């Protein structure tokens, strides 16, 4: 992960699909809507995820990081 080792194998199941829970799909859709509306671009989004404090970043799942990134950007821009 991120070019670092020590996180163990990535579990892959045949039928896991794109999302593991409904909230993940909602986060995915929320990001798509906010970007389409021009609130931020993908590079700002990647930058926001990189600004998550390291401990929180490492403890979070993939879509938890997306949600934290969205929260950071909305706070930065004074929207939420």
């Amino acid at each position, binding site marked *: 992960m991120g070019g670092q080792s020590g996180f163990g194998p990535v579990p892959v199941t045949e039928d896991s699909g794109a999302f593991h829970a409904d909230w993940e799909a909602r986060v995915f859709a929320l990001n798509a809507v906010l970007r389409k509306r021009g609130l931020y671009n993908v*590079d*700002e989004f990647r930058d926001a995820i990189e600004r998550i404090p390291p401990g929180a970043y490492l403890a979070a799942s993939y879509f938890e990081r997306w949600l934290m990134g969205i929260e950071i950007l909305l706070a930065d821009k004074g929207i939420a």
Partner: protein
Amino acid sequence: MRFTPGAKVRARVLDPDHHIRLPRYVRGQVGEVIEAEGEGPLPDDRARGLIPPRVETVYAVRFRAAELWGTGTHSVTVDLWESYLEEVP
């Protein structure tokens, strides 16, 4: 377009305060240019809201996993903007 397919290039060791789309694990490493993929706005600039962002050629660059991590027989191909790369003499 500065680099041609087959060229050996080194990913620069860059660590700016702002976002850069240059993975830490390739910095300083030598790879091979697979192809130029066209031009793209520099993520560093877009992440900072600089308008207009600089536009550069983006290259697919292949690195040997064993050189990045000391093990593995596979390779890793990374999209890298031209200013992230330098020639290998």
